């Protein structure tokens, strides 16, 4: 009998002490916010376009952390889905077509002679990439535009075009090698094979 009591008491004592330690740790080392949300947010393309059905990238990151599918971000495309799958250790899924297709990088361009200066696009731009004031022509800061196309819809005169981002010589890089490539081709001369 006394053995059982001792065992129960010992376990109780252990439970109480560990509970106290855990309780202390929970208060002392409390993390502000959810770090996984930050990590997910940093992988999202930050277009703030809302195509995923959330009002911005951070809310979608929050939703993913709460268990939503990771395949609802068309601007990020396959690369983002892959990165999210790696981070969260889940199977990558194909992009959900319901939310849109992966398009090449775009940039908004205002046809300036048609702009009436209504400022509606300025209000729509989530990242303040459009400059202008009332009754004056507006223009898009190309280097800042993420191509979310949120400014297209509010424009009353339809003077905003989404144009594919031109690839210049500066941003060019080598593509995957083809079968016949140049540079560093071998010389099959007898002298070389002899040496």
């Amino acid at each position, binding site marked *: 009998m006394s053995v059982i009591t001792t065992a129960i008491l010992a376990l109780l004592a252990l439970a109480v002490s560990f509970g106290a330690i855990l309780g202390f740790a929970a208060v002392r080392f409390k993390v502000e916010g959810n770090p996984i949300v930050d990590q997910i*947010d*940093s992988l*999202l*393309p*930050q*277009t*703030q376009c809302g195509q995923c059905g959330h009002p*911005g*990238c951070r809310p979608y990151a929050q939703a993913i952390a709460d268990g939503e599918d990771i395949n609802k971000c068309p601007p990020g495309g396959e*690369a983002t889905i892959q990165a999210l799958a790696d981070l969260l250790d889940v199977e990558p899924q194909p992009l959900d077509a319901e939310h849109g297709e992966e398009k090449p990088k775009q940039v908004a361009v205002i046809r300036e002679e048609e702009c009436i200066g209504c400022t509606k696009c300025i209000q729509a731009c*989530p*990242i*303040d*990439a459009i400059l202008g004031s009332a009754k004056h022509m507006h223009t898009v800061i190309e280097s*800042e535009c*993420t191509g979310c196309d949120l400014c297209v819809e509010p424009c009353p005169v339809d003077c905003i075009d989404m144009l594919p981002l031109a690839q*210049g*010589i500066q*941003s*060019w*890089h*080598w*593509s*995957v*090698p083809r*079968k*016949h*490539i*140049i*540079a*560093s*081709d*071998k*010389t*099959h*001369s007898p*002298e*070389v094979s002899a*040496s």
Partner: protein
Amino acid sequence: MNSALSPTATRKRKLYEFSGGIHPQEMKSVSNQRAIVTAPMPPKLILPLQQHIGSPGKALVEPGQHVLKGQKIAEAQGRISASLHAPTSGTIKGLQDFPVAHPSGMSDLCIELIPDGKDQWCDLTACEHYEHLSPSEIQAKVREAGIAGMGGAGFPTEVKLHPPHNDKVATLILNAAECEPYITADDRLIRERAHEVVGGMEIMAYVLQPGECVIGIEDNKPEAIAALQDAVKNTRIEVVVIPSKYPSGGEKQLVKILTDKEVPSGKIPADIGVMCQNVGTAAAVYRAVRFGEPLISRITTLTGDCVEQKGNVEVLLGTPVDWLLAQYGYHPDRSRRVIAGGPMMGFTLDSTQVPIVKTSNCILAPSETELPLASHTQACIRCSQCADACPAELLPQQLYWFARAQEYDKAEHHNLFDCIECGICSYVCPSSIPLVQYYRHAKGQIKQQRLGQQKSDQARIRFESRQRRLEQEKEQKAAKRKARAEAAAKAQAKKKASETQAQADTGENT
């Protein structure tokens, strides 16, 4: 200053060896037998605004404007940039996109100049004795002359004439190794103008004040070595003959051979107190300081079986390659491709209409038997020849798997960015796997991803600050409304009070 008056060339310097490397067929004698000839004046010159690493120059001329030879036509923009000068007198025809010598085959903004045939110089300021100038004046002259590394990379030279972080430069190395097959531009330059090369190095040494000055040259250029040894008499410059091995002319490899120092991963030689300059650059610096001449021409090797008169030509920048080749007996029917640069590191030109630029050290027009196209790629057999030959001591097989599987983070962990793209791995691979091409692709992808990440971080910051601003505006509006409501309530109360007061007053009065 001239503390080491004794000829140092006789002193034996200990040489070190870098790991890997190969001995490809040199093919240099086909083009180094003839003296440098000056190319005739082409009917038009196409001058890209970007012929160097860094930001492109800003055009200073307008269509229709007449310019003199040596007149500045584009200004350096920013710290790392280079100016551009008119290679001859003539009229600016326009500013537009032309195909340029770039592996992409894309077009870039160029100035088109139609020579007037007079070849009339603008005013130049010569300087007999560079010692009369201060180092900063020389740096300004080099920047003004638009000189960019002429060995092939095209890094603006003036930037490399500043000691790193105000440290002392231990060794100034002049790279005369010219290790890539076929190319002989530096060889011929040294043979014929060794005093210019040495003069340029003395000027650089005057600016940088290095502990020692070394010219590294491969032993396959005996005439050039003799010319250099003759020219360095009575100077503190040491000519060091190194064994021929590709790629001993690679900057990091040459530093290792001459000083036994290894450039750490992700660093440049300047970080360990070594400065490397190319011999062509030294000659250009000499001409810029001594005669005030800007960089308007360079020596280019024309070689390959499809060119009849193989050799080195002094050619004006902007000369179209097809026109230049035509002057020296080019057979376009025999040639399948024209390569800018050498067979190891060069790239095929999409169009031969591109112009010669500051970095064009060689134009190679091989026949098909001479440089056959790569045969079919086969599977990797893990022979490890690539790893044995890699001069950067990387693991080419691992990098290949990672690059192919798009596991770029792993490729980076295996020091992908230390790859100097010398092309040896592709050259030695018995399965003809285009290894270096995979690395180039992977590097490009990683750079693009980084850029994308940067852009999305920027967008997030802008988005968040906009949210904050909207929030603030809302709060301010609410506060204002509240204040207004309070004020209105107060006014109301006051009015009421005064009304009741007035009523009371009238009541009292009556």
